[in-house]
């Protein structure tokens, strides 16, 4: 294992020494904010890590990559990639007691770019994440009515029938694409701001502002609710789900292992990416949160506990989601079958109860042989439960289309709808706390605002700027922009930052110094597992994932899916090529944070060089101690 570390002069001056930290600890001279108790810290970190991705990305990945077999790569990569990186971020934050910009600048001034990159990524992701929360709020506001507005198609203006677009697709689709998003047919078609979404956006940013107005003082109180409520709701949904018909089919389908998927490299790639993004690593928020801890806090145990909780939540949420999806698929299957039976009964004027599920196949065969033309005209659909179950959906489609449809079929639907969307709201909000922390603390460290401005004002300004920038997500083509940000703003830069973090701590800060730090902080040296993963295994995994990602993203065609009523296969979503200017946007989104690292280093290097040239004129001299101008040794 390589034990070299790059030369790093002046490191001792930049970081607080052990004695200084002990002094700060005992005398409480530090004016840095502090957690009220350990529970707040754990709940905040859990809330940051556990987010919407656990609910709507993991179940999809699990089901599409071999069900129960997906657990194997997921757990392996959790242990070898997630936990080491998490421990690293916690330890370095707790040791250097600064946010992301401060920590990396302390390790080496040229590494300030890593903090800036984290800040930019947190900023971009916070922008679109809160817009998703605004959409969740819209659904919460509209859940307070019975029947739910997405359960039936609306009527045309003169009450002669139902709106055509709704009839051709489905009420939930229509409600999502037309009444909520009012989506245009392409990203070129910007349209205007949808006022109802704007109101929801105001509400979302206002709630976030109120919760983060004084940093962890206020978020520490808010997380008691936002981090615990999702678990309560998931449990309620599990109990409710298990009493519904077909739910167990869904769970069985989810966990049925297909071992041959393990040989597919995309499975491992997706598992690694999911572990990485699910842990909210490289955002800078975790480093900040950890820096508010007492200096002898056991960060190793925290990292393990939070990883376990995160993994468990993913699996738990997947179970709940798929119990409900199983119920929905069974409902669709029943409806499909009954429809077929009705068509046949009506066409051939058979007695109502003569055609049942039991004798369907033989009767169909008989009818097909005697009068095939009538049967063909009927357009009978094949009803396959497995097929319905495997129509995996992820992302906003899962929450706002599939799940809402399932909810309309449950009795007392408004209650379930409110519960579900409040859960999504809490999951999203607690993740936003981490994002905002990842933006605010670097802004303070970079001294972008005058020092005497109160924290409330700075937080308010940041929220206001983000709010205005988020207007792009509430126009007609807003959802396309959201998908664009989702795919490109987070993926590549985070992988680069995480890889640089590991290299910086292990080779620039020095793994020996790091080991000593941890021994001083928690009492024992990190064991061989941590050494191996920090030095070799985790950076290697990050590198492999990054290269694969880069290759895949660069080589694939830039397409996106649109909602186009004129599409021939409507209501399926049409896959369309991105227009040319979107490539520039993608380069900006992914490139600017990534390039912040080398560019800042270069900029600081050049600035240092210029300064050194200026300073060459001065003569070095030692200063002498004197009292009242009289130097002591003259008397």
């Amino acid at each position, binding site marked *: 294992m390589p034990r070299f570390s790059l030369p790093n002069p002046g490191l001792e001056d930049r970081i607080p020494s052990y004695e200084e930290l002990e002094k700060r600890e005992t005398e409480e001279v530090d004016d840095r904010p502090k957690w009220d108790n350990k529970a707040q810290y754990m709940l905040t970190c859990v809330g940051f890590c556990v987010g919407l991705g656990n609910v709507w990305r993991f179940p999809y990945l699990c089901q599409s990559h071999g069900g129960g077999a997906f657990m194997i790569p997921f757990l392996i990569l959790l242990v070898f990639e997630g936990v080491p990186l998490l421990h690293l971020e916690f330890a370095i934050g707790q040791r250097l007691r600064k946010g992301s910009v401060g920590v990396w600048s302390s390790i080496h001034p040229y590494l300030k770019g890593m903090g800036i990159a984290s800040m930019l990524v947190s900023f971009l992701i916070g922008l679109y994440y809160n817009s998703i929360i605004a959409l969740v709020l819209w659904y919460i506001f509209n859940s307070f009515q019975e029947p739910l507005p997405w359960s039936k198609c609306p009527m045309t203006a003169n009450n002669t029938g139902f709106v055509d677009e709704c009839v051709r697709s489905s009420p939930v689709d229509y409600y999502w694409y037309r009444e909520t998003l009012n989506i245009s047919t392409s990203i070129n078609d910007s349209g205007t701001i949808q006022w109802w979404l704007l109101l929801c956006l105001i509400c979302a940013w206002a709630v976030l502002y109120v919760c983060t107005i004084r940093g962890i003082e206020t978020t520490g109180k808010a997380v008691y609710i936002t981090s615990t409520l999702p678990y309560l709701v998931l449990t309620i949904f599990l109990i409710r789900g298990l009493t519904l018909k077909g739910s167990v089919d869904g769970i069985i389908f989810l966990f049925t292992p297909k071992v041959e998927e393990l040989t597919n490299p995309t499975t491992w790639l997706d598992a690694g990416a999911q572990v990485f993004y699910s842990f909210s690593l490289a955002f800078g928020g975790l480093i900040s949160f950890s820096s508010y801890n007492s200096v002898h806090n056991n960060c190793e145990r925290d990292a393990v506990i939070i990883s376990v909780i995160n993994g468990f939540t993913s699996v738990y949420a997947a179970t709940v989601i798929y119990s409900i999806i199983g119920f929905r698929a069974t409902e669709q299957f029943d409806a499909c079958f009954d429809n077929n039976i009705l068509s046949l009964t009506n066409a051939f004027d058979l*007695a109502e109860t003569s055609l049942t599920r039991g004798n369907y196949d033989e009767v169909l065969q008989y009818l097909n042989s005697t009068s095939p033309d009538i049967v063909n005209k009927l357009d009978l659909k094949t009803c396959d439960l497995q097929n319905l179950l495997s129509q995996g959906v992820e992302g906003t489609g899962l929450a706002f289309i599939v799940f809402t449809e399932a909810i309309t079929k449950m009795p007392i639907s408004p209650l379930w709808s409110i519960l579900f969307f409040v859960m999504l709201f809490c999951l999203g909000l607690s993740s936003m706390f981490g994002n905002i922390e990842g933006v605010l603390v670097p802004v303070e460290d970079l001294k972008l605002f005058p020092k005497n401005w109160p924290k409330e004002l700075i937080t308010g300004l940041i929220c206001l700027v983000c709010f205005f920038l988020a207007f792009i997500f509430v126009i007609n083509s807003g959802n396309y922009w959201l998908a664009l940000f989702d795919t490109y703003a987070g993926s590549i830069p985070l992988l680069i930052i995480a890889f640089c973090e590991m290299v910086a701590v292990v080779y620039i800060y020095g793994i020996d110094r790091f080991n000593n730090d941890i021994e001083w902080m928690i009492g024992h040296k990190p064991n061989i597992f941590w050494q191996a993963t920090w030095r070799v295994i985790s950076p290697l995994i990050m590198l492999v994932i990054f290269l694969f990602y880069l290759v895949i993203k660069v080589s694939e065609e830039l397409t996106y899916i649109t909602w186009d009523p004129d599409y021939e296969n409507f209501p399926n979503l049409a896959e369309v090529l991105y227009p040319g200017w979107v490539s520039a946007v993608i380069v900006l989104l992914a490139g600017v944070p990534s390039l912040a690292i080398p560019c800042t280093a270069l900029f600081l290097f050049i600035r240092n060089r210029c300064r050194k040239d200026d300073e060459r004129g001065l003569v070095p001299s030692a200063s002498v101690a004197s009292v009242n101008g009289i130097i002591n040794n003259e008397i």
Partner: protein
Amino acid sequence: MSFGILLLAFNLFLATEWGATAVSHFCFKGSPYAHKVRISLNAALGDQAYVWDECEQFYFQATVAYGMRKSMNKPFNVSDVHICAETKRISFYFVVTNSSDLSKPLPKTAVEEAIRMVRPRFNNAFSLDDRTLEFLGIEPTLAPHSEPSVMVWLIVFGVIMGLIVVGLIAITIIGHRDKIKKTRASKERDEENEDKSLSGIENGISCNTLDGTEGHKNEALYPDDKLTQL
């Protein structure tokens, strides 16, 4: 006379026979005057479904006649409603003829109008609804949607925004109060420290020493001989 009665009877017989065959001219599947009716008793009533027998059929004819009477204000009878092509599905065709002239079936539009007019009563008569008692070709008029939905979500939005504003004000006030308390506490602490350190010290000489009645030897004026011995 008996021949006359015989002729009359024969004529009547011929008339009904001719009437029956006349009806079968226009009551058949695909006739331009006939409507198809489809009844789904099991779907509507499940276990409580009644059997569709002649009495129910009579009831149906009577209800159609009632509808025609209401719509056209003419005295229609049960015998004016002719049913044919019954199937086990419980579906059949029916035609309505003019009471005065058996050979003239009424046009479809007139029948449609009548059925539409009394549709709710029709459904209730058989404990069915628009979906389970189908008149093919006569679409049920859809109930208009009530539209208060815009108000509901705005109300909820207003409530939540109100709570947020209240929370904001509360946090600001509490923070302001805490800050005033903190500055006041720290100012008091500073004053205490000042008093402790500054009280009784003038020119670096503690007042206590000046208060004392005993004299103090000023060491600087009397250098200790012990030290300067050669």
